[in-house]
């Protein structure tokens, strides 16, 4: 069984089950389990494949979900070696709980933008329009990185966002934008890049607060994989990682 595709999970239970399954049938000795935030999912998969190519005999299994969801899975005992979070706070939470081995490394910066469906049917012009009650607006829920960042952005602009839905996963917002069910949403700049032509940016929010994409080594993975664990983190934090992150639209840390 070879699972190199990312395991995308909407519900935490599902990814816990999948992670357990992978560990179970692989014997756990040559599979490096990487937990990656939804916003860095594509980048993580690309770098995982590169790492595998350079290190035959190791499989890097990437589980993609919301950072907070992944944090709860680590707390519940998921045997992940690497935790790649959308912001620093979630990693700090894990560090406080003693789950992190060594220091966390900021690898990129990410910011939010005001995104609308292609063609901008509602005629949204900038962040200020998110206060309009007549528009259907989506953002992330408080407590998840993109939600916390969105609230920071709104507070900095002294804006009351008239939200119609709050998701715990930024990808859900993109799905709803693509379906034209939302007039506008606050999503990561990198998500808009990944979404292609279906979603466009109307306000890049230059100068607004940003979040620090952070990677950390976890204690909970298999001991004999710590070498690969640290090497993978080095790959992400190094120039190869930088290049991939740049291409995906991430800013410098």
């Amino acid at each position, binding site marked *: 069984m070879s699972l190199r595709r990312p395991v995308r999970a*909407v*519900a*935490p239970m599902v990814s816990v089950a999948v992670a357990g399954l992978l560990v179970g049938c692989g014997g756990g000795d040559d599979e490096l389990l990487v937990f990656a935030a939804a916003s860095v999912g594509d980048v993580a998969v690309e770098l995982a494949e590169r790492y595998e190519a350079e290190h035959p005999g190791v499989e890097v299994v990437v589980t993609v979900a*919301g950072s*907070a*969801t992944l*944090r*709860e899975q680590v*707390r519940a005992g998921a045997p992940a070696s690497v935790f790649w979070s959308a912001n620093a706070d979630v990693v700090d939470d894990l560090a406080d709980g003693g789950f992190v081995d060594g220091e966390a490394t900021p690898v990129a910066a990410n910011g939010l933008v005001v995104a609308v469906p292609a063609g901008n049917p509602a005629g949204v012009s900038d962040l200020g329009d998110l206060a309009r009650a007549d528009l*259907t607006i*989506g953002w992330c*829920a*408080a*407590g*998840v990185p993109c939600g916390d960042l969105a609230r920071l952005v709104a507070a900095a602009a002294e804006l009351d966002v008239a*939200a*119609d*839905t*709050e*998701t*715990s996963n930024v990808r*859900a917002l993109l799905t*709803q934008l693509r*379906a*034209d*069910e939302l007039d506008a949403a606050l999503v990561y700049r990198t998500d808009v890049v990944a979404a292609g032509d279906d979603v466009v940016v109307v306000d890049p929010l230059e100068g607004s607060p940003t979040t620090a994409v952070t990677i950390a080594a976890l204690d909970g993975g298999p001991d004999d994989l710590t070498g690969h664990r640290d090497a993978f983190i080095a790959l992400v934090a190094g120039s190869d990682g930088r290049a991939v992150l740049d291409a995906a639209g991430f800013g410098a840390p």
Partner: protein
Amino acid sequence: MTRPPTTVPRWVVALAALGAVFFAVPILGLLIDAPWRDLVSILTGSAVLEALGLSLVTSVAAAVVAAVIGVPLGVVLARVEFPGRRLVRALVTLPMVLPPVVGGVALLLAFGRRGVVGSILESVTGWTVPFTTVAVVLAAAFVATPFLVLTVEGAVRNLDGRHEAAAATLGADPGTVFRRVTLPMILPSLRAGLVLAWARALGEFGATVTFAGNLPGRTRTLPLAVFVELDTDRATAITMSLLLMAVSLVVLVSMREHWWGRR
């Protein structure tokens, strides 16, 4: 009345015990992890009460919708021969096997702003369904109604029509026969189906989060609140899970006592 002793093979009893444990352990896990000391303050928190209220209102509304469209569907499927009946039955029961998220997507494609029905609705009334409490009810009714349809269809199929024929000879027109004979005769099944549908609506998550979104006070029902809190506040998530379980349990057990207890 004494019954003759019935013998159940030991391995059947053993497997049954295993089954009981399988259901009991996860609930035990919730109970063990529950923040008992803060339980009352969490339960009386406005977010929890809001989600609970919304859940109760929308699940009951969904059960009403299920009754209004599900009972006629069940009766027609059981009694009326028409071309494509099997197709209709398959369609109606599809939400039972479909992943609820897929149901939510389908509802978006139908009642969303660009959807077949939703676009007409918006151009006529200016009103859109998604991200409203109505959407929550629709999503719950979508996944819950099949339970009622199947129960009612089965019950009506089991009626042999003799009593309805007798009612007709007494001068009752088809409407009266349906109200005063058919419905009362399937009442036990109807109640069971309604409770099942209500319970399914109460626990609905996937179609709701996809079609109705997730906003406190408007569309965030208890299951959605649990999902959100799982990522942010575990104690509250567990407390709300217990609450959801308690509400379901109280209703299911009291209904059982009322309607099936005298067996």
